[in-house]
């Protein structure tokens, strides 16, 4: 009896690395699975850690908060900064002191308290009709409110996180009153009610509905890679606004470790991987975003769009005015 017991123990020790390989890490993601799965699959290949992803466009912060200390979430991935800050402020994240992250992610793209980390940046650029708009290189966000552009502007819903971020940065730079005035003028310049997504506005430019729109930079690459959408991209130039003053507004996609992560070690490994050269290259190539890792360059296509000055205002500053942005949109009845 004792011998077989001892054998059992020895065997199980020998066998345990196999069982140990059944590690997993759980992600709650605001980013669509088809965007991140290619990267997480590489991670699993390398480390043997299984990755489970739950995607939802809305409500993850609420879900985390309700689940409390028994939440299975290890890592949260977001597609914009405000969400990232929101979960941090709500106490849903914990610090990741991993030294690797300080090497791969520059200071301005990570939290001082080590809770949130950016993974990529994207510019809120302008898509401008090739033939119908002059002086493209000196365009500014403020100009969208000028009478020259009456009936020529297309935009998605003002309340979309990408636009909220931009409007918040306008409040940070110009103050509430001036931003409200700008929003009113911009609304008057719209060719149609805010509708659709960023790419839909470019489609509208190509159709001749309007001449200028706002959109994230990476969509340019996505359109060029899509047979049906190529003509849209062909009709426009990608312009980085405000190069003549403070620089173009940028946003980030990012990650944070969940407060009650059950698989802490695996979560650290995943987060280190996502900021490492390998994953950053994938982000750059596949999604046409700007990687935060200074050792990784943007893809060739993205580089061909030119370099630009980014607005140096820290995103944490911008985030303070998020509520104001919402309020102003309501006061101006922007979407209605």
């Amino acid at each position, binding site marked *: 009896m004792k011998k077989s017991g001892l054998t059992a123990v020895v065997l199980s020790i020998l066998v345990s690395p196999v069982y140990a390989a059944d590690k997993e890490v*759980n992600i709650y993601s605001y980013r*669509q*699975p*088809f965007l991140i799965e290619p990267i997480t699959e590489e991670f699993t290949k390398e480390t043997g850690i299984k990755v*489970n*992803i*739950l*995607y*939802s*466009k*809305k*409500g993850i912060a*609420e*879900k985390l908060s*309700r*689940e*409390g*200390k*028994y*939440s*299975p979430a290890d890592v949260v991935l977001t597609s914009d900064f405000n969400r990232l800050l*929101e979960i941090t402020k709500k106490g849903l994240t914990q610090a990741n002191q991993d030294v690797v992250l300080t090497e791969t992610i520059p200071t301005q793209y990570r939290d001082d308290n080590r809770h949130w980390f950016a993974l990529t940046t994207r510019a809120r650029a302008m898509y401008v009709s090739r033939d*119908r708009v002059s002086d493209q290189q000196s365009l500014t966000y403020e100009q969208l409110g000028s009478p020259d552009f*009456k*009936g*020529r502007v297309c935009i998605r*819903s003002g*309340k979309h996180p990408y636009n*909220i971020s931009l409007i918040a940065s306008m409040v940070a730079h110009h103050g509430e009153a001036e931003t409200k005035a700008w929003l009113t003028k911009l609304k008057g310049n719209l*060719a*149609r*009610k*805010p*509708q*659709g*997504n960023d*790419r*839909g506005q470019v*489609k*509208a430019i*190509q*159709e*001749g*509905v*309007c*001449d200028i729109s706002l959109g994230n930079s990476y969509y340019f690459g996505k359109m060029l890679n899509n047979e*049906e959408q190529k003509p849209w991209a062909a009709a426009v130039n990608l312009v980085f606004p405000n190069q003549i003053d403070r620089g173009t507004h940028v946003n980030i996609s990012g990650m944070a470790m969940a407060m009650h992560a059950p698989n802490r070690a695996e979560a650290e490994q995943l987060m280190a991987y996502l900021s490492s050269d390998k994953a950053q290259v994938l982000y750059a190539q596949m999604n046409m975003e700007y990687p935060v890792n200074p050792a990784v360059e943007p893809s060739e296509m993205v580089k061909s769009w030119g370099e630009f000055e980014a607005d140096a205002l820290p995103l944490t500053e911008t985030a303070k005015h998020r*509520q104001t942005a*919402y*309020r102003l949109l*309501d*006061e101006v*009845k922007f*979407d*209605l």
Partner: protein
Amino acid sequence: MNNKKWLILAWATSFCLILPALFLLAQSFAPDTELFDHLWETVLPDYIVNTLQLVSLVLIFSALFAIPVAWLVAMCDFPGKRYFQWLLMLPLAMPAYVVAYVYTDLFDFAGPIQRVLRALFQWDVAVGQHWFFEIRNVPGAAVMLALVLYPYLYLIARTAFLEQGAHLLQVSRSLGQSPWQSFKRVAVPLCRPAIVVGLVFIGAEALGDFATVHYFAVNTLTTAVYDSWLGHGSLSAAAKISILMLIGVMAILAVERWQRGRQRYYHKYTGQTALFHLSGWQAKGASAYCALLVFAGFILPALILLSYTLKSMSFNTDSQLGVVLLQTAWLAILAAVITTALAIIFSFTNRISRQASAALPSKLSSMSYMMPSTVLAIAVLIPMTLFEITLNDLWVWLGFDAPGLFLSGTVFALVFAFVVRFQAVANGTIESSFLAVSPSLDMAAKSMGKSNQQLLFSIHIPLIRKSISTAVLLVFIECMKELPAALLLRPFNFDTLATYVYQYVSDEQLEQAAFAAILIVLAGLYPVIRLTQTGERTT
């Protein structure tokens, strides 16, 4: 079981179902007047107006679509009627957001319709100067919703017309009334309870819809709910607005009940009436109208989905898709069976109990239908996680390992949410059928010494078996299409067909997921066709 035990059972199950709504109500009492005031002073009035316009238009269009064709198919004979009977149900299988996507593509500025119109009329296309054919507005959204929702009303109205006391219509005909007059003066008023039930479903769907109205850039009260919660970060304000919407709907329902008064609508099952035979332009008109509805609500979107699939050639022979389909299907069946069983319990209890309050379990459990799906999902999470956390804490305190989120982290949460959400559908279907069973049958059974159980199983259930099938099938289809709650409540590595499709729809790339969307439609087709067949069986 005596009456009291049935009552306890009904109340207990109803209570479980209304827990989410109760917690949401509690949440709404948390102070947040500032946000509410801000909304009221800015956009809330517009949202309310938009909502009223949208819902009224959806109801009007749905009635215009459904009632005439239900009558035609039930009471008249015209070319193609045999096929139209079930064809008219097909739009039920189409998710509303798919139809919305397809039609915006068609009617878009560069879409085929406008291009043709421009060529024909030589409209000016300079930027900023031409007239837009806007589809993305309230009437446009209303048409979209009506196109996929009218089958509910069609189904209920058709069943009601078929079950009508044949003698009443015979009398009407012998008094010289034409088909149109019989329709207007006898059939429609007789079927009032059924029509109201159908319109209430449709109104609730329209009220809680987010995906379609969002795509159509229409801002309703549901927009306000999402804004308050996700934008301004206040679940209590969102809860307040949801509760207000609920109260509004209940007020309208109360008015209708009061107006109906003490009228009762019994059906005598005396077989089918002779059909009105249509000819000439009447017959052609009937066929054309039916054909138009089927084409617009199903055939056109289906063809376009097919063309997307062929274009992108992404047949997604992902074996994963097969698993997703099966997962979604058995979830849906489970929810369908549970809701129908509960609906029978509620209606039966109401019937045998002498107390007026016995009607409440049913009504209360139907309330959650009016809540926007995402809010419902959060409302489900609140009591569920509270319960789990308490239990986990207790387990740990007792010295064992915490079992983790054994409810909200599993499929249980999904099934529960589906049941809470679609209980109203089952209730309405079963209830209107129970109402049509004459109380004299009950009295006869009682006088013969039958127990409650015997009454239910030997007499009522056989009589309402059409409704039972209808309820199960309806809830099944709804669960297959349901999206927002599924997104939030599903466990890891678990997709429903709808959440799978949504990854792509949310990026306006339906083309990639067109094949999966077709699967949703196909999965709904069989139940839809069965639904019409159950309507045909005479009692």
